[in-house]
């Protein structure tokens, strides 16, 4: 097979000092025949010179003389290998405490992370810290490799205990795909081939898992964002805007807005060296020319007219501090976001996170390797989305203007909104910088309603199989919110089907229309400042995604109530599964009709593994964080 057609997976590896990370990578490279003989000879020479009996594969990864001298990894190293199925880029990051900044660096572009845990030591503070950083950086897939199984007699109990401890920790994190694999990197068990020593393990081997992670679903194909990098003007007849599509898709003829000017035009063509494209999408590099002579320069952003990012001069972000010189609120920094540099300052340190306990602490400054939440002010508006939704438009770096060093990595959470800050839409300047459809069209602006209500309006969309517990959880949540003086409304699939949607059946087209109507109704209530709880099986991803698009970013939450169909069948609260199985009803989800689980739900509640009380506690805290605006994706 021609190698250009393979897919690509970038992953990062991390672990504590002696967890065997280098051995594991060495093993992967060795077994995929990616270590060259002359490279092997060179490290063999070094090993011999140092008087070691065996060839130490770590020397292969420690590219700097200082690292080989000290026997530690100082900096991120990149390694490459491939299998017939995939190309892999490894960002190998040091696991030492003092090198947290390297881990953030290595992890920033990763699709997947591998955390190594030494089976003999169990889950250490370090392993938790690594999980926390992976969660902060929103790496969608995590593999926990429990290594050195050979030294614990390949014990299933040791493995299960570690899984249990880590699972209870990772519930507090925002990572939805975690796979645990027992391995011995030294002996090769479950790295590439199935281990004959652990017949009790029936999951994938490490390489199999790496080869089969589905990454294309992790991209944001919805929100078109095109930061202009370079203006190309070869002659008078051509003026094009060159850049790399940060997210979304675009086709010629579509109406676009240029930020910050707000000028509108239409896409005339998508030019490349290999010919004009009928459609372009993330992560392609293209040249866009527009139908009108509008002023566009580097640092501007081209977006779709009906899908705007936030356009603000203030933002709220998680910062990872990476410099020896501490954060100063008195100084300004250069902030690089997409293709632009702007002056910025930290106006408030909300808290620092103790990465070992996940507790939040007040702080006056951040030191090297500190992580925490801040509010920032920029000299010019930025065009951004929350990092959770869009990594490319939600991330930034801070540069010290004196040293020009990169001093921090930032992930934007949202626009800082203290309730008292809500401004009326008649505020002309605000209207200009935030041309959001919803704020403009309403008689009473949403912000005013929210101010009066004392909480933000959001939409919680509960999806899952019949019998998974959607209604039970949503009803209990609504009762609790109501008790907390929140304005709520519960839209239930069954209720709507009795009235508004009584003309619809269960064929895919009917289901689609049912969800469309539900979404529009939810929107009406949302615009009135309510917390809208919607419980719909809503089996099709596309239908749910189209509802999401009705709402501003950060206001719609897809909550996946996960429960295996066999368990739902066992519960069968209304006897519907029984009817479906006997053929009394047709088109029943999970029996005769498919259910597409969400690719990127905002929250997963597993009612099979978690008690109702735990689910409630979790969802209540999660929601409180958004409506009263104080949440992290991790709980205290």
């Amino acid at each position: 097979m021609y190698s250009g057609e393979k897919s690509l997976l970038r992953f990062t590896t991390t672990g504590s000092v002696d967890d065997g990370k280098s051995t594991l990578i060495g093993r992967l490279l060795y077994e995929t025949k990616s270590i060259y003989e002359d490279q092997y000879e060179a490290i063999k020479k070094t090993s011999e010179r140092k008087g070691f009996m065996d060839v130490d594969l770590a020397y292969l990864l420690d590219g700097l003389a200082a690292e080989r001298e000290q026997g530690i990894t100082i900096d991120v190293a990149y390694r490459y290998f491939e299998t017939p199925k995939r190309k892999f880029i490894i960002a190998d990051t040091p696991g030492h405490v003092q090198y947290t900044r390297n881990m953030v660096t290595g992890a920033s572009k990763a699709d997947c992370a591998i955390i190594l845990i030494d089976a003999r030591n169990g889950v250490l503070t370090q392993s938790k810290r690594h999980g926390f950083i992976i969660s902060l950086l929103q790496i969608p897939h995590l593999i926990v490799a429990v290594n050195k199984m050979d030294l614990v007699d390949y014990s299933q109990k040791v493995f299960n205990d570690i899984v249990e401890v880590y699972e209870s920790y990772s519930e507090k994190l925002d990572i939805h795909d975690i796979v645990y694999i027992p391995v011995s990197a030294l002996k090769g068990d479950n790295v590439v081939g199935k281990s004959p020593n652990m017949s009790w393990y029936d999951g994938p081997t490490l390489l199999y898992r790496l080869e089969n992670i589905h990454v294309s679903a992790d991209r944001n194909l919805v929100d078109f964002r095109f930061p202009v990098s370079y203006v190309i003007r070869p002659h008078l007849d051509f003026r094009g805007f060159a850049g790399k599509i940060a997210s979304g898709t675009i086709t010629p003829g579509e109406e676009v807005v240029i930020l910050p000017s707000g000028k509108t035009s239409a896409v005339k063509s998508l030019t490349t060296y290999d010919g004009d494209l009928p459609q372009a999408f993330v992560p392609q590099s293209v040249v866009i020319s527009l139908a009108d002579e509008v002023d566009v320069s580097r640092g501007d952003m081209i977006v779709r007219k009906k899908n705007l990012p936030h356009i603000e001069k203030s933002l709220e972000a998680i910062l990872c501090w990476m410099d020896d010189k501490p954060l100063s609120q008195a100084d300004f920094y250069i902030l690089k976001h997409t293709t632009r540099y702007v002056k910025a300052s930290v106006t408030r340190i909300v808290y620092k996170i103790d990465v070992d306990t996940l507790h939040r602490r007040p702080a006056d400054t951040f030191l090297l390797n500190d992580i925490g939440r801040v509010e920032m002010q920029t000299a010019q508006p930025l065009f951004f989305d929350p990092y959770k939704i869009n990594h490319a438009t939600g991330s930034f770096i801070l540069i010290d203007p004196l040293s020009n060093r990169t001093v921090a990595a930032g992930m934007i959470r949202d626009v800082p909104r203290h309730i008292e800050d809500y401004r009326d839409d008649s505020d002309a300047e605000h209207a200009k910088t935030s041309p959001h459809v919803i704020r403009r069209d309403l008689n009473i602006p949403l912000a005013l309603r929210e101010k009066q209500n004392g909480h933000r309006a959001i939409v919680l969309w509960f999806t899952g199989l019949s019998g998974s517990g959607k209604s039970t959880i949503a009803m209990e949540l609504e009762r609790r919110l109501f008790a907390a003086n929140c304005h709520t409304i519960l839209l239930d699939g069954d209720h709507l089907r009795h009235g508004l949607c009584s003309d619809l059946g269960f064929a895919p087209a009917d289901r689609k229309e049912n969800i469309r109507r539900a979404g529009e109704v939810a929107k009406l209530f949302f615009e009135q400042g309510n917390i809208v709880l919607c419980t719909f099986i809503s089996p099709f991803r596309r239908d749910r995604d189209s509802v999401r698009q009705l709402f501003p970013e950060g206001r719609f939450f897809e909550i996946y109530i996960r429960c295996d169909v066999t368990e739902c069948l066992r519960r069968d609260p209304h006897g519907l599964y029984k009817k479906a199985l006997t053929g009394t009803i047709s088109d029943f989800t999970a029996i005769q009709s498919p259910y597409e689980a969400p690719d990127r739900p905002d929250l997963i509640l597993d009612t099979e593994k978690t008690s109702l009380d735990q689910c409630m506690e979790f969802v209540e805290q999660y929601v409180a964080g958004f409506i009263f605006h104080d949440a992290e994706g991790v709980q205290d």
Partner: protein
Amino acid sequence: MNSFTVSYLRQLESESIAILREAAAEFRNPVMLYSVGKDSSVMVRVAQKAFYPGKFPFPLMHIDTGYKFPAMYEFREAFCREIGARLIVERNERWIAQGCHPLKMGVDKCCSYLKTGALLEALTKHGFDAAFGGARREEEKSRAKERVFSLRDASGQWDPKNQRPELWELYNTRLNEGETMRVFPLSNWTEQDIWSYIKLEQIPIVPIYYARERLVVERNGILIPVMPGAAAEKEQARTVLCRFRSLGCIPCTGAIPSPAVSIDQIIGEVRAARKSERENRVIDLTSDSSMEQKKKEGYF
């Protein structure tokens, strides 16, 4: 209508294009270091794509030691004429005139004068504040630690222990007085990617990448071609069917035994290779950290 996916090579290409555009936009006076080899050919093609339908807005610069293969000089002239690029050739004439040669001065010193020295002088002479290089992380272990945008101090030196963190695709392009930037758009490409791309894009390459019978002498297990100024007379020369896997100066570039006479055969050979592509580079073999040492001084 489609699955919105692009191949691995197109992903790499798109990333490299974005890097070139960022650098061209941010630096006052960038230059592309052109070594005539396969990686340079690929880098030039990516540059053509990045600024299409315009021309790439920087010149090419070849640091010439005078010891390159005749086929490389011929190719260089024809290639640059063909694509209409502005080519600057810089040589350290002072040291070339003094007969600087690896056999006479030692490999490391020769490199230091004819390549690193010449490069740093040329950057200063033309006032270039950024230089694109075709180096790839996969090539060599100290290059594996390299940033895409890699800072050089006022004397052109690299400080590997004190590099700026590089996150997402947000490149810090800012320079202090006297500092320069090396930019490596092909950082994440492997040798195999380079060849696959050359095939996909039908990119012209120097013909000595292909195998034919050549007169060589064997020195420390490396096949060094017999050419004027290259092999010492008393060594035993023999004819071997061979090709050059990477190109450098004649005295320090070994051939590998190979029957590969087409791109497909080369791709097959690279895939099956048990040795790294720089196995034939005498300059890498003087010590375990030869490349790191050279890079610290300001090498490519």
